């Protein structure tokens, strides 16, 4: 129950932050990537603001044996940088640039512009499924 409340609070605050920061506006996000056009540096300020509390959180994690409402921290293993990571990130950046949408703002955008947000989310779900069944078959076999 406590875990569920924490999750809802985290997601709601996250979505509110996306809306207040202007990151829910795909045109503004794309303008950050538009260095030869009307460049908009707002995203850099958002990143700075978001990294600050998280840097403190990581500091606390190193000094706490367990999270507040769970048995253990599930932090990603420090595996090496491989072609899968770079290729996936490169692909993600291309999709991000095309319309200025990444997963967070797209899902939060359901409350603002439901139709285009839903189209993006449905296509993204298809992409997740394509990855699941086409790219991970060798690894999971």
């Amino acid at each position: 129950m406590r875990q569920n409340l924490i999750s809802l609070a985290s997601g709601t605050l996250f979505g509110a932050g996306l809306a207040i920061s202007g990151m829910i506006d795909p045109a503004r996000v794309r303008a950050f990537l538009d260095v030869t056009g009307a460049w908009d540096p707002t995203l850099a300020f958002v990143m700075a603001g978001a990294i600050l509390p998280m840097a403190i959180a990581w500091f606390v994690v190193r000094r706490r044996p367990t999270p507040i409402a769970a048995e253990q921290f599930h932090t990603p293993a420090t595996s090496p940088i491989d072609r899968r990571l770079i290729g996936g990130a490169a692909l993600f950046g291309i999709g991000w640039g095309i319309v200025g949408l990444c997963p967070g703002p797209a899902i939060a955008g359901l409350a603002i512009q439901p139709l285009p947000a839903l189209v993006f989310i449905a296509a993204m779900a298809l992409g997740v499924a394509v990855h699941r069944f086409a790219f991970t078959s060798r690894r999971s076999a």
Partner: protein
Amino acid sequence: MLGFPHAMPLEGFIGGLMIGVAAAIMLLGNGRIAGVSGMFARVLGLSAGGPPWAIALLFTAGLPLGAGIVAASLGVKASFPTSLSLIAVAGLIVGIGTRLGSGCTSGHGVCGLSRLSPRSIAATVTFMATGVVTVTIMRLSGVIL
């Protein structure tokens, strides 16, 4: 802001702080990374591992809830592209890319960079670079005017 008439540095920083605190609540409360692409895949039942389904679902559902509250109380400006086919193509690429690369702007950009994770730094530099190249190509070829 000087030279950048549309920039919102203050709103951006405040909204960014909220995003960072939200991710910190998830990490310190549930011991989980607030990565939206990973949570989304978990909601769909298409991720190997990941948090309990209820955690992923409630976090994901909170995103439009929080954005909706802000939109209703303060108002929000958002101009989505008009071409739904272009949006669909981008969504498909983002879906494949974020899974292959194990994260997006939130997981790598916020949670990973703040941890100084070499993988997340490499991923963030890469997706920012290909994002800039993509937008620049679209601008030079007249897709964006």
